[in-house]
């Protein structure tokens, strides 16, 4: 019986004092100062018009609280997420927002209790319509970011107060390392028998013809298609499939920690991006993982994921177990 009473009391308290935070905006502070001044003036002079004005100012504060509460009540949020989040770079993040009844105005969304900086907003949210809110967020460093909830804030209706509510929503965001400028060259391409692209026999211009293009300065004159060049009146070279593709296996050396590890991850990410963009195949060696060489954006994502988890292996195991 006692327990039930306690539960009811707790429920009543929650109903009376919902978990909201209220912050006074800059204009709101001035508004409150003016209200205080009008109140003092009214009490001091007994001027009824000042009492009337004071009543209006105080009522607007109450109405502001009620309208903002109606605005952020009954909101549900679903994380749509992002395609790729890179550390220290703004990335597009999305939430799908809806509400069952009533209208909401001037809502801003951000991730609660996370290092992600930035937020998105929606001016008007009608009932029973799912609205996708886009935000440019920035993560300060790479690695997994545990998301616990979405913070919804509104300054509706007068912009005097910012009322905030946190909607609990668990999630994980993997932040890839920043693709900084790589100071070092990737080194010599892998020439071992690791796949066709690494086969030196395929670098002799014997691949299938994929097209012709004008010979650039400093390019190998042996690739000139003389017949076509003669008919076109300019030097054209033959482009062959895979003939220029090399294979690199990048490595994050074991034993790196802290800033050195971060720097190396960024460098490897930058190199991998550059090489893959040039059409090469790239693999990755880390202490715990070895990624086979591959090309294309999917391979880049694999490399970035592997780099992002470096140093957070314990958390990764937990996640995989949970999955």
């Amino acid at each position, binding site marked *: 019986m006692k327990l039930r009473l306690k539960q009811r009391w707790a429920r009543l308290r929650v109903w009376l004092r919902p978990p909201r935070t209220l912050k006074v905006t800059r204009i709101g502070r001035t508004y409150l100062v003016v209200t205080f001044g009008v109140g003092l003036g009214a009490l001091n002079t007994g001027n009824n018009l000042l009492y009337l004005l004071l009543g209006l100012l105080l009522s607007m504060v109450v109405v502001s609280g009620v*309208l903002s509460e109606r605005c952020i009540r009954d909101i549900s949020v679903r994380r749509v997420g992002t395609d790729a989040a890179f550390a220290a770079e703004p990335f597009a993040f999305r939430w799908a927002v809806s509400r069952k009844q009533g209208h909401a105005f001037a*809502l801003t969304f951000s991730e609660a209790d996370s290092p992600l900086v930035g937020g998105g907003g929606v001016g008007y949210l009608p009932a029973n319509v799912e609205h996708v809110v886009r935000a440019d967020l920035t993560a300060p460093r790479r690695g997994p970011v545990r998301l616990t909830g979405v913070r919804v804030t509104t300054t509706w209706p007068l912009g005097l107060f910012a009322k905030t509510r946190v909607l609990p929503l668990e999630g994980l965001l993997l932040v890839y390392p920043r693709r900084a400028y790589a100071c070092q060259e990737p080194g010599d391409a892998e020439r071992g028998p690791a796949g066709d692209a690494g086969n030196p026999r395929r670098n002799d211009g014997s691949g299938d013809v994929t097209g012709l293009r004008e010979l650039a300065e400093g390019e190998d004159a042996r690739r000139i298609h003389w017949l076509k060049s003669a008919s076109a009146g300019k030097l054209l070279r033959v482009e062959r499939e895979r003939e220029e593709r090399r294979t690199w296996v990048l490595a994050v050396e074991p034993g790196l920690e802290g800033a050195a590890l971060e720097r190396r991850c960024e460098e490897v990410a930058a190199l991998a991006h550059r090489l893959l963009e040039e059409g090469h195949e790239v693999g990755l060696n880390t202490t715990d993982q070895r990624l086979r060489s591959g090309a294309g954006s999917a391979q880049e994502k694999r490399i970035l994921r592997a780099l992002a988890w470096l140093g957070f292996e314990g958390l990764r195991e937990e996640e995989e177990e949970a999955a």
Partner: protein
Amino acid sequence: MTRGTRLRLVLRDVASGCAFASMAVSGQLPLWTLGLFAFALVAALFGKRLFARRAKLTALLLLGVAAVLAVNVTSGALNLVVAACAFAGLISAHRLLSAPDPATDGQVHLSGLLMVAGGAALSGELVYGLFLVAFSVLSSVSMALGVVEAAVPEGEPIPVRAVLRPLGTGVTFAVAGAMAFFILFPRLNWNMTGPRAAPGLGPATAGFSNTVRLGGAGTIKDNPRIVLRATLSPDPGVDALGSYWVGRTYDIFDGMEWTNAGGVRREREPLLTLRPGGDNLIHQRVELLPAYGARTLIALETPSRLGNAVANGSTGSRRTSLQELAGGEARFLEAGVSYAYEAYSLPPGGSGDSFRKLPSEEQDALLALPEALDPRVAQTAARVLNGEREPLAAAQKLATWLQREHAYTLEQNGEREDPLADFLFDRKAGHCEHFATALTLMLRTQGIRARLATGFFGGERVNDGYVLRAGDAHAWTHVLVPERGFVTVDATPPAHRPSQGSRLLQRLLGLYEALESRWRNSVVDYSFRDQVDVARALVRPPKGAENTARSRLPPARAWGAALVAGMVVYAAWRLVTRLAGRPRPHAATRFVDAVEAMLVPARLVRGEGETLEDLDARLARERHPLALALAPVTRRYLEARFGGRPLRQGEADQLLRALQQSVAAHVKLEAQRARASEPRARAS
């Protein structure tokens, strides 16, 4: 700029204009500030933000304006409050002309708020209330649109219509809340400064001078502005009072203008008794408004006592003494924007003055004629009276003749050498001063004492009182009748005695006055006493309810109480039904609750979410002394809960008793062990 943004800015600018107007209606702001603000507002409404590129440089202009206002204040030309209000208006004007951004918008709204507060300090007009509401609504909508606009991604339209609906509801509730606060918030002070008065817009129109010059234009008769409010006791209860309100009298006419014999009679009196009164005096609480523009007191004919006078200024009210002058004129000693006082008057029929008790110079003046009086005046009077010598009858005979033979007109044909002869014999048309002068002098030519009286005629019912307009200014004749004193005889045609202004305008002003009166009674003069009345009205029937016809239905309060009681009963019934309708816990569940409670003294370490079955299994594994006692209890619980074998009558008590004994024995044993282990621990 999108459509929504433009609308928001227009609303912001108009709201600022309303806030400024709430100060301007007091009529106290310097004209140049009005001009500057009007220019800024018009430019802003046309989208011309002239200070957009040089906000800081143009802010220096404000410093210059502040310096000018400061000089005005120090020289005494301007009140400090008025100067502060004017400066707030000019700050707002500067912000209106600056580039619109969130900070500027906020400054415009806040300066508007300051202006509205300043307006409350300067004015108590009904128009102020209208501007206050207009400012609140427009400013709220503009601020809300600004908040939504900031959250709407660039390029998307602002949902103006969607915003207006919830905001309209919110503002309505805010206004209702403001009224509730206003009514219920206790007035902790007694308003020692008293009511304030603002000169209002437009110059004062009425007034009394020391002379009345014939031939002046009668334009005042067209003026519908209200100059006097009065409440009478006993209340005549008629819509049109049709009474004479006297200000002063004149007894010497030099052929062109009327003057008085004598000067100041009493210098400084808090209460003036002009003539003795009886028990049937008419009490008047009179308020002379800023449009009146003179210091002469007005009272119903014939005034007996005047006093309790207060002069209202822009800073408050103060008591003022009265001065009595010749011609029965009473004046306020101190100047004010408006005045309030009380007066007692004799009922109509005569002033009761005795000729012998009049000052000697006044006695002589009552028969004085101008030296160059046209002889035809006396001849005509004699012809019309035809031997009538009784003063009142003679006066009425002459008045009837004048009304019949002469027309009423407000048009004048310039200054005449002998305006009376011109009126009587040439033009045969004039206004009230011509009629009154003609009657007075014609009576005097026949040896009947008379004088000219000026004041107002009329009295239009507004709510519980009467008002007089500037157009009600009038002149008439006092005829001295033996035993009755001065009796009023009016030669002006009755239709032309009250105001001659436009009917529509008068009706509109009357409507405004009725609203203003309610505003004044309910808002401006609302006090702690009114709050007590409100509270009393809630718990007791209003005064006079017993006089009205009793209804067989219960009073509204009874309906209200019944409604509240009904709601309470309904809520209680809902609660009881909900409690009664909830599923009863299973008997086995109650049993296990009791077992758990019984195990508490044993201080068993329980894992999170560990059920009784788990606990029993763990205790058995650990060979705990209580395992033997707990095992049958647990088994029986599981059978009762899930095995379809409910507990028999008294079985639960039996099992619990056995468990309780085991627990008690275990607790006792543990305590003994603890006591036994304590000295060893100390020794080690």
